[in-house]
């Protein structure tokens, strides 16, 4: 997990920046070429950290981001950290909004070298050039050696990294990223993801990160806004939102929860780490993370089974006493999803309806969650 969160934990008294209040409506009528679309969003997100805008394609994620950037004109109100960008008749045009924007495709200026693309932003940032900051950004993104090249001489991954650097060098007060990995193949994604993780973990400006990939969201974001057909389907911390059972954003086969915890023990003999979260602790394969290091793990519902007693005669290492809090049977009636509560955390288990029936589960019932596998995501 990030240094930022670690720092926040060490200095809990630190003043929190004002939140970002978004209340936007945009109606695009049907035309001959395009099906109509409407965006109707009313949401408050934290004024710091990474907020993922998550949803299926066509859910309005990109439109939402473009409205915040001022690239599209929605009606409504937009208050970013206490400054009004839009309200009633006031509409700050895009070029007057202190944003950085990373498009899905790198969109570098083709007539300028990578270096000149960066200079373009520096010149217009309105701030004197900060060489240390410049160097840090180049280093964070690993682009020191490609600066003299033109965009068409760069690989797709390099282009996107230069584009990210350019968006940072404008010194934004809000960084907007529209699926910066979506146009890249798997290998390029793996190339850029570490840079993004580093960036998201250390950025002092709030980031809005549009994505349709749960993996990216849980790796990068602290907070998530789920959009569905132009409306907010859910909003909250990543751990909270992904502990809900909501098929619009969590397909039943992929269901899983996120747990934030800390490494509390390392077992060198069996190469395992023990992490504690609010509600219990879990063993997972040693991650190399030091004791006290915050980590984030994902537990998939299909890896969780339920027992009425604490069984000692099992190969499963992770058994956590929990309470049943919600039971939900899928439409076909073959699968039962059970939401379990431990401390402040939730775990979701996916059972056959038959097992659920024979265990006779009812809300409030104490049971044991047996967790077969835990994946480290951050």
């Amino acid at each position, binding site marked *: 997990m990030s240094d930022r969160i670690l720092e926040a934990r060490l200095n809990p008294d630190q003043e929190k920046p004002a939140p970002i209040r978004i209340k936007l409506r945009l109606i695009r009528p049907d035309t001959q070429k395009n099906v109509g679309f409407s965006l109707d969003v009313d949401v408050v997100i934290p004024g710091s950290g990474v907020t993922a805008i998550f949803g299926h394609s066509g859910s309005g994620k990109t439109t939402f981001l473009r409205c915040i950037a001022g*690239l599209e004109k929605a009606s409504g109100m937009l208050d970013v950290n206490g400054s009004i960008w839009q309200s009633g008749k006031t509409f700050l045009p*895009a070029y007057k909004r202190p944003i950085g*924007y990373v498009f899905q495709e790198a*969109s570098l*200026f083709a007539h300028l070298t990578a270096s000149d693309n960066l200079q373009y932003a520096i010149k217009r940032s309105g701030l004197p050039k900060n060489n240390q900051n410049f160097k840090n950004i180049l280093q964070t993104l690993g682009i020191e050696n490609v600066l003299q090249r033109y965009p068409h001489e760069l690989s797709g991954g390099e282009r996107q990294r230069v584009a990210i650097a350019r968006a940072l060098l404008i010194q934004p007060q809000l960084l907007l990223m529209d699926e910066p990995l979506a146009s890249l193949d798997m290998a390029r994604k793996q190339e850029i993801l570490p840079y993004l993780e580093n960036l998201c973990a250390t950025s002092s400006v709030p980031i809005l990160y549009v994505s349709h990939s749960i993996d990216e969201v849980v790796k990068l974001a602290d907070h998530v806004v789920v959009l569905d057909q132009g409306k907010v389907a859910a909003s909250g911390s990543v751990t909270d939102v992904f502990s809900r059972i909501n098929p619009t954003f969590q397909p039943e086969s992929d269901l899983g929860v996120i747990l934030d915890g800390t490494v509390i023990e390392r077992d060198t003999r069996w190469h395992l780490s023990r992490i504690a979260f609010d509600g219990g602790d879990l063993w997972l394969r040693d991650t190399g993370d030091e004791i006290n290091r915050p980590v984030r793990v994902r537990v998939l519902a299909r890896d969780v089974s339920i027992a009425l007693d604490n069984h000692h005669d099992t190969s499963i290492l992770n058994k956590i006493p929990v309470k049943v809090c919600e039971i939900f049977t899928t439409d076909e009636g073959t699968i039962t999803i059970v939401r379990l509560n431990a401390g402040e955390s939730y775990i979701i288990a996916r059972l056959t309806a038959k097992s659920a029936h024979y265990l006779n589960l009812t809300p409030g019932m104490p049971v044991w969650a047996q967790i077969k596998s835990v994946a480290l995501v951050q």
Partner: protein
Amino acid sequence: MNFSDSDIETILLTLRLATTVTLLLMLIGTPIAWWLARTKSAWKGPVSAVVALPLVLPPTVLGFYFLVAMGPQGVIGELTQSLGFGTLPFTFTGLVVASVFYSMPFVVQPIQNAFEALGDRPLEVAATLRAGPWDTFFSVIVPMAKPGFITAAVLGFAHTVGEFGIVLMVGGNIPGETRVMSVQIYDHVEVMDYAQAHMLAGMMLLFSFLVLLGLYSLRRRHNIWGLKLER
């Protein structure tokens, strides 16, 4: 090669006319091209058609209407007279005005096509990098559409050098004022002075060929968008 003084005078006048017209057209044509490239207005069609008229109309027809409009009773004529400029036919200024209109499509179309080829994205990127509209125009649009501007300037210049009919109608044949090369050639031929005609005609042929050669090799190297030479 031995040009007479009057030949040299017509060559210089032609160059002066073409330069003036090209500069004016770049100033007037660019905003028109921008509007045509970006607008969703219903006026796009009619305006495009008017701009393209000189491509299909005989120059004498255009020249005739200009002559009438610029005359003492014409719309333009009344305006220029009330402003104290007198009337424009058979003056250099009149020739410039008619030529600007006559060469308009050759300037507007390449620039418009270059603007259209840019798309919205570079403008949006510039806006997110805090570039205002004018900044965006000069730092992004002009450099990216540069081949279109070059094509437009060269075609506008060459086309003005090569006009004849509209010059005769609007400008007449006044030495040092409206007698350009094409008219001079006509005069030489009329008096059977083929040697002089050959020199001027050959010069124009060579000039036009070199201009087009230059454009097409530029197009091969830079993929000039929007080079439309069809008439």
